[in-house]
């Protein structure tokens, strides 16, 4: 049952020592499959910490290339990677941190046509995408497929995250019914973001993924955690599943996935 090499016991010793992870938890991590959506600000720390933790299979999906303006916060990429596919660059860094893990780089854009096929191979989805249509798509697809996920968003000095266990806890649409109208909410590329905020939130999301897999602690379910790092204020707001939620409610009105129009930010690049 336990076939760790001496090297692996050393590598994972700080997990194994934890009462709530232990040998059993580390075995679970090795068998787990996590998909990271977006190899950007949130996906960077997530990809690195998931790989370091020994999560057996890690998919990472992104269709973008590394740009110099990414490097202020997207720490999985380096200066030498400018112009490369983000998922290839991320995969290389992940394999360098831990050759034990199987990394699956997916250089594609998640859309209504491919998301179900992609997520079905994973136990947990970590959403680090940069736009509302994809955030809602990830929510709806995960609810329909019954796959737990972590929502994350950052802006300026602020971050927010919640963990969703479909059928048990409030989903993203229980809180936010539909994407905001284009341009009513600024994105990072318009408004800016303090680089370390991406690390703060991405690592919270990763901790949730590791907790879900190992069963340790209590998840951020039915809770929206938000922080304002300009004053280091952290808040939790209690949420509850909404009976009239269009996707996880009693009579869902969203029963199939469609692509909302992507809002293209005029200021990008």
């Amino acid at each position, binding site marked *: 049952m336990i076939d760790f090499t001496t090297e692996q016991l050393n590598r994972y010793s700080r997990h194994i020592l934890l009462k709530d992870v232990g040998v059993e938890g580390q075995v679970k991590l090795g068998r787990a499959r996590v998909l990271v959506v977006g190899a*950007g*600000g949130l996906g960077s720390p997530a990809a690195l910490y998931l790989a370091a933790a020994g999560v057996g299979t890690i998919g990472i999906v992104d269709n973008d290339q590394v740009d110099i303006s990414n490097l202020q916060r997207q720490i999985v990429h380096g200066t030498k990677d400018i112009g490369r596919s983000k998922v290839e660059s991320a995969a290389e860094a992940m394999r360098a941190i831990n050759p034990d893990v199987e990394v699956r780089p997916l250089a594609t854009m998640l859309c209504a046509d491919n998301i179900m096929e992609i997520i079905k191979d994973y136990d947990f989805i970590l959403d680090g995408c*940069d736009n509302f249509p994809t955030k809602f798509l990830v929510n709806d697809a995960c609810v329909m497929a019954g796959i737990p996920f972590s929502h*994350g*968003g*950052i802006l300026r000095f602020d971050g927010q995250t919640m963990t969703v266990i479909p059928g048990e806890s409030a989903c993203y649409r229980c809180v*936010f019914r539909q994407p905001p109208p284009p341009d009513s909410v600024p994105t990072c590329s318009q408004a800016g*973001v303090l680089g370390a905020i*991406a690390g703060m939130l991405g690592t919270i999301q990763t901790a949730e993924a590791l907790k879900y897999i190992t069963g340790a602690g209590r998840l951020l379910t039915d809770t929206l955690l938000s922080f304002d790092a300009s004053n280091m204020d952290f808040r939790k707001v209690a949420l509850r599943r909404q009976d009239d939620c269009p996707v996880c409610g009693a009579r869902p009105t969203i029963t199939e996935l469609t692509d909302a129009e992507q809002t293209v930010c005029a200021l990008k690049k």
Partner: protein
Amino acid sequence: MEITVNGVAQSIAAAEPDLLSVLKSNKIEDPQMVAVQLNGQFVESSQYAATILSEGDVVEFLYFMGGGSR
């Protein structure tokens, strides 16, 4: 009257303040930028103007936050 907005006590001068005016006084110009919970229940954006607050109400503005990747 005293209400709590995002965990912080606020004094409101108006006798019968509606949710929309409280949004505006909290610098939320576009009501579609937030989801609003009043005493733990979500309020539809179409109802903001018609929702009158009373003493001790707890209001949460939950902001859309979309950044992450680029």
